[in-house]
């Protein structure tokens, strides 16, 4: 690129039949421009390489820190439910389970609700309400997670304990699978409550990205659909969604990324118990919550190392989610091209 530009400028210089002094000063200006350009080029490249270096530094530090735990427990670390600081036997199964289940609950709720809100805002909402609702959704994204945590513990969890959970337990007491999912004493806090809080936190991501991509659907497509007699649902299902699926999935993944890594709010409401339970009302833990809770007071090298290993696993899970998302997008784009 750079050499190509230089050639052009040289041609330009040669072509100009200006006096020697003028061409010399012009050459100086061009040299200076070339210099600033190459400095700028170097800076941008340096910044990008710094990101790469940081990332690999983090990975190396995680692997180095996790090595004692991984060499002691081997692959069994991934499948062991016990987390016993007294006997120094650690396993990551309960935190992995908790992370995946809470994120799943969050996405199960946030995705449909977020899509509906986004569609309402772009298609059905009276102009007057559009901005207030849109701003409210964006404000949700701006609330620090500690606030969600405190609200979750002091307002939401007691409400769940007294009203929602007993209702679920009573209602589903005789339904085969649901009676196991919603069993046990209503603690108020637990996996289910954590999932709900996460859903609220993820909602603005799904909504605002979906709204932006829905806005980008050419009006002529929708109008044509309405013109041939489509219902609102059909326009949403067969015109808007297929047209925007790439962007919408991008929004999901951003939300899922946040749900997987969210720490503070989850720590407050999940119950922080290294147990795997069939009931969603039982307390559990997530990877990030375990690290946040235990790192400062982890006594002994193996304990600390096991927590770092948990961090490595979370890193890996997030990486996989991103990779799957990329793959899906690629597939969709190829299909769209056909």
């Amino acid at each position, binding site marked *: 690129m750079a050499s190509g530009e230089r050639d052009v400028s040289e041609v330009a210089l040669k072509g100009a039949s200006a006096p020697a002094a003028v061409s010399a000063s012009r050459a100086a200006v061009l040299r200076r421009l070339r210099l600033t350009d190459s400095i700028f080029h170097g800076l941008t490249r340096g910044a990008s390489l710094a990101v790469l270096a940081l990332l690999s530094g983090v990975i190396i530090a995680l692997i180095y820190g996790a090595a004692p735990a991984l060499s002691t427990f081997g692959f069994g670390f991934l499948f062991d439910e*016990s987390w016993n600081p*007294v006997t120094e036997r650690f396993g990551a199964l309960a935190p992995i389970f908790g992370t995946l289940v809470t994120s799943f609950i969050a996405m199960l709720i946030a995705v449909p609700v977020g899509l509906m809100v986004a569609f309402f805002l772009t298609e059905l909402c009276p102009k007057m309400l559009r901005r207030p609702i849109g701003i409210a959704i964006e404000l949700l994204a701006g609330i620090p997670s500690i606030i969600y945590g405190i609200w979750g513990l002091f307002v939401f969890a007691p409400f769940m304990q007294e009203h929602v959970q007993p209702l679920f337990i009573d209602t589903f007491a005789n339904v085969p699978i649901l009676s196991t999912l919603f069993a046990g004493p209503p*603690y108020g806090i637990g996996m289910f409550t954590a999932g709900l809080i996460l859903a609220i936190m993820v909602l603005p991501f799904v909504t605002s990205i979906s709204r932006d991509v829905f806005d980008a659907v050419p009006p002529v497509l929708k109008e044509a659909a309405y013109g041939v007699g489509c219902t609102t649902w059909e326009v949403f299902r067969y015109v808007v969604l297929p047209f925007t699926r790439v962007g919408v999935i991008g929004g999901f993944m951003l939300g899922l990324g946040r749900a997987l890594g969210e720490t503070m709010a989850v720590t407050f409401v999940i119950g922080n*118990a*290294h147990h795997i339970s069939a009931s969603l009302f039982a307390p559990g833990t997530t990877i990030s919550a375990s690290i946040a809770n235990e790192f400062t*007071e982890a006594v002994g090298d193996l304990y600390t190392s096991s927590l770092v290993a948990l961090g490595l696993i979370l890193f890996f899970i997030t990486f996989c989610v991103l990779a799957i998302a990329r793959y899906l997008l690629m597939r969709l784009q190829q299909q769209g091209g056909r």
Partner: protein
Amino acid sequence: MNLTKIVLATAFAFSPAAAYAIDISGAGATFPYPIYAKWADAYKKETGNSLNYQSIGSGGGIKQIKAKTVTFGATDAPLTGKDLDDSGLVQFPMVMGSVTPIVNLEGIKPGEIVLDGPTLASIYLGQIKSWDDAAIAKLNPNLKLPKQAIVVVRRSDGSGTTYNFAFYLAEVSPDWKTKVGVSTALQWPVGIGAKGNEGVAGNVAQTKGSIGYVEYAYAKENKMTFTKMINKSGKAVAPGSDTVQAAAANADWMSKPGFGVILANQPGDQSWPMAAATWILMYKKPEKPAESAEALKFFAWAYAKGDAMADSLDYVPMPQNVVNDIKKMWQAEIKGADGKPLYSPTN
């Protein structure tokens, strides 16, 4: 190196004030932080010397003193004699408090409900699941206890409070000793975890039918419903400074290296069964003797003049005879590079 020394020497030579104001640094247990901060404040007003204490947790305190980044470490779980000898540390108790069970039961006021050690252990083992269990009812014949699930609340982080609590449960319940054990962090059979004393207090306050354990000061400040406990002598006692003092008076402090006696389940009619001390860790031959000498002066000052302040924050001062033993130990063990004791009772 030499250059720095010269620069430092000149700096000190020209600023005599700097030589007096020595900063004592310490790190460790969160439980005694309020009283250490209060003492440090009063001490600075009186002497001009300041104490910088970071409440990073007992585990962190032990790590920091072993890394020699601080003048003293502080821990709620005492080190063993072997550990102390291996690292060349001495250990002494600074102040006491107590671990107190708290409950959230409708219509039950502080001190109304009575528990004993084995029952408490069974609750935390998940064997007693409901408040109307026969074991609890037997201890509380006059209370009408609800048929409500017990929500067990415990610490999610490592903690000296947990250590003292687990130590007591292991003393009174063989089941606890074999199934769970004693440490600052445990594999809890049941319950929900909350971070810090304030987290446990908050969760118990929010959750109906819950039980938790906190430092007595948290129970008192937050007006929580504390329980009475049946002690080793079979008497029901309430938590407080008098019952902790009774437990401390009955303890044989010299029986463990570094005064490392856990005050759990002490004999005596008035003894609170979960009294707890908190310890200071220092080097026998510190690298910076001047700072250690200053720290010892501060501790001596706190033993002599800090009792009222401790009382106001619901801590319990050490008995005088124990303080005398501690000072003797300082003179015998903590020495400067010249082999002379860093502490002498006269200065």
